[in-house]
């Protein structure tokens, strides 16, 4: 199959996903794994081993395949969100009651791992009002208050200040922790450096609110949104340590975007 054929299949699956998500997303996963097997790229086994040197040849090949599969599912999900909006996603996403009833003030930190674009599907069901700091199209979901973090320094500061007031009012703020529009904090991570956005840590310092890491993971049934324990300290090092442990347990949840940012920082 050529690259164009794979891309056409992705578009087809995105259209199918609105009517038959239970078929479209597993097929997307299989397509991504096939693409990885055929091309031996996106990512290459050797790239996986550079992040996870403890993995042997076959294990790293399996992880590369899982990352390819994740990438294709996420591509289909992103296209489906762009075409149909967030409603079809609601049936796919599950979250434990302990997460949905989490009390504010609380900062939920998301990362570019797993089915990150599906996190918003759970946030819309929270009992406590949620404000999402958004960069680009991340968390393009309906029932959330969203503050864009794009624009000049005053606009970004305004978004941060809104988040601060929201936390002081007992709300929940969602912050993409590993995407920085301006200043970023390079933190040791899997033998490389993860660039963390400082917003979550500043908000925690100003308000005393805990930082709780949140991830979404594809499952057989759909997508599970999960929370980790609150970080022991509201620092970039603690966030990176949490994410490092998570990816060492679940290396196939590494997204291509994160892998590339870690291995090829000069391309950013």
């Amino acid at each position, binding site marked *: 199959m050529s690259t164009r054929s794979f891309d056409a299949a992705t578009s087809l699956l995105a259209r199918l996903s609105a009517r038959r998500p239970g078929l479209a997303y597993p097929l997307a996963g299989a397509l991504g794994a096939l693409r990885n097997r055929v091309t031996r790229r996106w990512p290459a086994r050797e790239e996986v081993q550079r992040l996870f040197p403890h993995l042997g040849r076959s294990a790293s090949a399996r992880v590369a395949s899982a990352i390819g599969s994740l990438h294709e599912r996420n591509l289909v999900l992103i296209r489906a969100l762009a075409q149909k909006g967030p409603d079809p996603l609601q049936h796919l996403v599950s979250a434990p009651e302990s997460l949905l009833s989490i009390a504010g003030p609380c900062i939920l930190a998301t990362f570019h791992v797993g089915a990150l674009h599906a996190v918003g599907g759970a946030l819309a069901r929270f009992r406590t009002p949620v404000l999402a700091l958004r960069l680009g199209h991340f968390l393009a979901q309906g029932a959330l208050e969203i503050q864009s973090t794009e624009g000049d*320094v005053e606009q970004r500061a305004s978004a941060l200040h809104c988040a601060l007031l929201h936390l002081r009012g007992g709300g929940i703020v969602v912050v993409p922790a590993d995407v920085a529009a301006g200043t970023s904090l390079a933190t040791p991570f899997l033998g490389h450096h993860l660039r963390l956005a400082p917003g979550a840590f500043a908000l925690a310092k100003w308000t005393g609110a805990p930082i709780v890491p949140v991830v979404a993971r594809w499952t057989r049934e759909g997508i599970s949104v999960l929370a980790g324990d609150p970080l022991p300290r509201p620092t970039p090092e603690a966030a990176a340590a949490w994410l490092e442990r998570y990816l060492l347990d679940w290396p196939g949840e590494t997204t291509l975007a994160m892998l590339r940012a870690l291995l090829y920082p000069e391309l950013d």
Partner: protein
Amino acid sequence: MPLSRDIDQEILALLRTYRPSVPIDSRTFLGAEGMGLDSIALVEVLLECEEHFGVTLAADMLSAGRITAGSLIARVRALLVS
């Protein structure tokens, strides 16, 4: 109503703690093309002013666009007078 405090100097002194090496006067922008504060430092400056002077100004100032030392001084002065 005249103010007994030298607000200009208090604010300029506060700003200089953030960028000691940058010459700061009333026309200096706090963000780009001025002090070069990033979004977090900018919020911190405004929070510090709020706490120091006992006023609320961050939301209004940030929604009004680019902030200079002079516009910050004027805002604090207006709030204290009123």
